[in-house]
């Protein structure tokens, strides 16, 4: 088995930190760590400084990575200041260093043939989709994108990111940008109009579940990046599990940090937070 075989732990320098809407766009000089980063991978960062009471790393999807450039390898993140740890990270100044482990987890699967792809992101969940769009575009795919959030400021859709996207559709729950509503309100039309063959999604679990329903309804493949609370990010603690059907149809609790975060949406047993899905392997009798 190939477990995070490219992961590196390193103290990396903040090259840039800019406020973009509700988020901070941050660039780190990561050296070799960038070499093997693929769209869908994430990094895990120590937060709070030397005497921190926050003992666990925080996970962030890789927005972009680059091997070349003035600073050698770089990794870019889109950080929402959610709680104490992510707030701390978003407050780091240029030249400060943070301890980073990455790249971690599974990546989005890339079709071998050109296909029509739909990328769906919620909030900062758009981050890994732009790198994915580039790769898909380079393979000759048609790439549509739907980004949703509660309000306009929580949509992350930078200009340079749109280069590889054919049509970008925005939705907000309050109508402050794009279509008023949710991503799933606009998806069916796009799927039909563009003969979408694969959906990639990233965002809150509830959104992924709704996207999966649309995908199943339309009989389209669906790869999604799930987000469970992670204590270690490297597969050793078993906190981040998601119930998934394996090829034999058996439901097993799979680690989203290592067997994920990118998984096949049809294999996830959705809506099983706070309970063990019936028929799970080894479920209590």
């Amino acid at each position: 088995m190939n477990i995070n075989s490219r992961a590196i732990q390193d103290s990396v320098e903040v090259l840039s930190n800019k406020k973009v809407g509700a988020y901070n766009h941050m660039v780190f000089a990561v050296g070799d760590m960038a070499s093997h980063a693929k769209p869908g991978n994430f990094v895990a960062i120590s937060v709070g400084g030397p005497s921190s009471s926050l003992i666990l790393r925080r996970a962030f999807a890789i927005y972009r990575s680059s091997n070349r450039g003035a600073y050698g390898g770089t990794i870019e993140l889109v950080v929402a200041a959610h709680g104490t740890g992510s707030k701390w990270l978003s407050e780091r100044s240029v030249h400060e260093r943070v301890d980073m482990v990455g790249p971690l987890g599974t990546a989005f699967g890339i079709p071998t043939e050109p296909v029509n792809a739909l990328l769906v992101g919620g909030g900062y969940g758009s981050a890994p989709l732009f790198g994915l769009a580039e790769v898909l575009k380079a393979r000759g795919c048609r790439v549509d994108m739907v980004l949703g959030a509660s309000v306009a400021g929580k949509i992350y859709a930078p200009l340079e990111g749109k280069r590889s996207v054919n049509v970008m559709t925005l939705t907000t729950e309050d109508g402050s940008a794009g279509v008023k509503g949710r991503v799933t309100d606009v998806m069916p039309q796009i799927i039909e109009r563009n003969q979408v063959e694969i959906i990639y999604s990233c965002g809150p679990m509830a959104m992924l579940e709704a996207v999966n329903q649309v995908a199943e309804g339309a009989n389209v493949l669906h790869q999604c990046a799930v987000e469970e609370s992670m204590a270690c990010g490297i597969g050793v603690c078993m906190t981040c599990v998601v119930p998934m059907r394996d090829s034999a149809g058996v439901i097993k609790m799979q680690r989203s940090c290592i067997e994920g975060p990118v998984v096949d949406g049809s294999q996830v047993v959705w809506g099983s937070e706070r309970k063990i899905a019936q028929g799970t392997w080894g479920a209590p009798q």
Partner: protein
Amino acid sequence: MSEFQAFDFRTKFGSRYFPSPIFTASGCAGSGKELSQFFDLDELGAVVTKSISVKPRSGRPTPRMAETPSGMLNSIGLQGPGIDQFLEIDIPWLQSNGARVIVSISGETVEEYASLARKLRGINSLHGIEVNISCPNVENRGLVFACDPVASRAVIEAVRRNISGDYPIIAKLSPDVTDIVSIANEVVAAGADGLALINTVLGMVIDVDAKRPKLAGITGGLSGPAIRPIAVRAIYQVHKALPQIPILGMGGVTNGRDALEMIFAGASGVSVGTATFGNPSAVIKVKRELLEGLRSRGFNSLSEAIGVAHV
């Protein structure tokens, strides 16, 4: 302090020697594979596996964890494939990658512990069994074995009876008891060669927005630096009462200083658990810093340092 002076870093539990005293903690090192990306497993004194049960277990539903000040709660619920698949896949992989292996076992009845011991009896290449008795006893209203001296004793006796006499048995105790020394006495009388101190402390976090327990399992086990003073106290108390019994200390060890604290309190070895979640190579860091710390304090061997804080 000469870099070149030989330092005897070996430690011993029961009949087995280990080249260094820093082990992983049960349930905190995955299958071993995941950490082998960050260092060689033979750098460890031993890998202590996650606790394995007779049958496969799904574990508890999510959320399974909550971060707390300088600590975390977990309620994994002993997710695992069951002993058969474990012996077929995990153990051979670990051993072929140079790891010394201590298998942690867990059961819901005394008979389950006995049957796990029988499964392990034949595998002489193992370095020991750690018996996790912080499990609910289904035959006694779910009361945790480790909280009941009689049940604790029964489990260790059953394991000893079903395994060869020189097979090192380390009984892992819970700190959630009124008198840990009396439990230690019982399990040693029942045949334990060593004691692992401490398992997690029962704790709970409320999600104040959802207005319900954060963990799906309601309560969870508290680990990490927050509990280190409790662990050091338990080690000190038990070493004072049973100075000849080797102790595997654990609970919040993050660096060499913390390991020194446990060694001086009376531990013969130290397991690193939660620290690995924050730092994948924490175990190696602890090992290196402990060695430096012992040398710089003029010790020539680990054994000289064990329990020196006792007055």
